[in-house]
């Protein structure tokens, strides 16, 4: 079964450093997302991406965050200057269609655990 692949599985970084989280969505999917989950808390939407541009973003997704699809297969999330409160599990997801047009859900990757020290 096709998978969404995320690397690395765990990243430790010093406060103020830049990090790039990488995702390879399912190849025939067109919509891409980043979510995060602070330990023991609910899953929070960060950003959705379609046709090489951001289609929706949450209030969490401020100027410190950016996304990119640099080469047609990878989908990256960059945090420019990490803060302690950025420590969380970051999930990438992809979907084949815009939701509601068919019986398709989202496929989530296994996540990157980011620890900011």
């Amino acid at each position, binding site marked *: 079964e096709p998978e969404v692949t995320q690397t690395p599985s765990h990243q430790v970084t010093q406060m103020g450093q830049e990090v790039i989280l990488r995702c390879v969505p399912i190849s025939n999917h067109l*919509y891409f*997302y980043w*979510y995060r989950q602070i330990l023991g*808390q*609910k*899953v*929070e*939407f960060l950003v*959705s991406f*379609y046709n090489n541009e951001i*289609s*929706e973003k*949450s209030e969490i997704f401020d100027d410190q965050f950016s996304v990119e699809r640099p080469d047609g297969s990878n989908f990256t999330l960059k945090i420019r200057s990490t803060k302690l409160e950025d420590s969380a599990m970051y*999930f990438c*997801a992809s*979907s084949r269609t*815009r*939701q*509601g047009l068919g*019986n*398709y*859900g*989202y*496929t*989530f*990757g*296994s*996540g990157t655990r980011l620890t900011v020290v």
Partner: protein
Amino acid sequence: ELKVEQNPLFLSMQEGKNYTIYCNYSTTSDRLYWYRQDPGKSLESLFVLLSNGAVKQEGRLMASLDTKARLSTLHITAAVHDLSATYFCAVDMVGNNNDMRFGAGTRLTVKP
């Protein structure tokens, strides 16, 4: 702003028993999802409910959607230990480009 509320947040039940998890949401939506998450793992899609009155079943789990009441339920029948996990409902905002909001999750523990 769309709010999604689940209850209970914690559920401990005996094997063989039945129980229902509830998911309420605050604004119009006709797309609701249920996910399962095992500790330290990713989110596994269980159900996608797309219309009022939708009911889907997979094994011991059955999900339903009432868009008029803005309520979805996840019913567990004759629970087994393997069902122990955290279950999240999530709702898409109508008119938005895939902006799915999650409930807080229900941590289910099934005891022998």
